[in-house]
């Protein structure tokens, strides 16, 4: 159902399919861990989405490419109260 929902074309039994399946299983373990911190209704929920068959390295290399630029601390007027 994941392949259908997210239009994945790799064939079952292929090397790529096996690798993606492994990453998918890793993702479900992460979801259990991430969801264990809070069950309050408004809290973040983690689960299967379009990135669930990517390894964390692949995800980082594709989507987490922003460079950090340090900025000076804000020194404007305080807004206490």
């Amino acid at each position, binding site marked *: 159902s994941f392949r259908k929902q997210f239009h994945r074309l790799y064939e079952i039994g292929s090397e790529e399919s096996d690798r993606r399946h492994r990453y998918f299983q890793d*993702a479900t373990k*992460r*979801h259990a861990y*991430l969801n264990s*911190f*809070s069950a*309050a209704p*408004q*809290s*973040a*929920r*983690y*689960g299967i*989405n*379009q*990135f*669930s068959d*990517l390894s*964390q390295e692949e*995800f*980082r290399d*594709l*989507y*987490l*490419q*922003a*460079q*950090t*630029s*340090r*900025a*000076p*601390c*804000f020194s*404007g*007027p*305080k*807004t*206490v109260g």
Partner: protein
Amino acid sequence: LPAKFDWRQKAVVAPVQNQQACGSCWAFSVVGAMQSVHAIEGSKLEQLSVQQVLDCSYKNKGCSGGSPLWALDWLKQTGVKLVPQSEYPYKAKTGICHFFSQSHGGVAVTNFTAHDFSGQEEAMMGQLVERGPLTAIVDAVSWQDYLGGIIQHHCSSQWSNHAILVVGYDTTGDIPYWIVQNSWGTTWGNEGYVYIKIGGNVCGIADSVAAVFL
């Protein structure tokens, strides 16, 4: 400050985009802020060219990554006018920079401010209301698995790796949160948006925040 504020309700925030397999979040963040400020100043809300920033901002590395502050610095220094997205469409690949004549219409950055608001997120709320949507960088490692709700854990500060656009906040509920537009399409998160707890610099959202002036 109002208890909640959302620039989307003023129809000055363009729809969620999808950067696809290209590390262009930094360009989407900057262009998103420019589009909104342009609309806040009375122009029609119009999507501007992310591809132009991606191809032409030489201080950055196109789809291999970049910094919103370097892009803003380039826009300010060169006075380059961003053309509409329709004239320079997004391809999710770094390409050759297309130049336009000075007489060609477009939107230019005249200035920008960049600050670290860690420990001062209320002041950041003030900037959002006063200046318009803000570009920011965050730690988004755990966002690979995000489905919805307010992020309060699993997010570090000072390890930023992703650029986003802060478009609003809501402090009326039990957990005050930022409303953040991402560039991973509408099927991700809350129809393309993510909510981050206000206070504690969750995900490093206050580490490096910029407002643009046109």
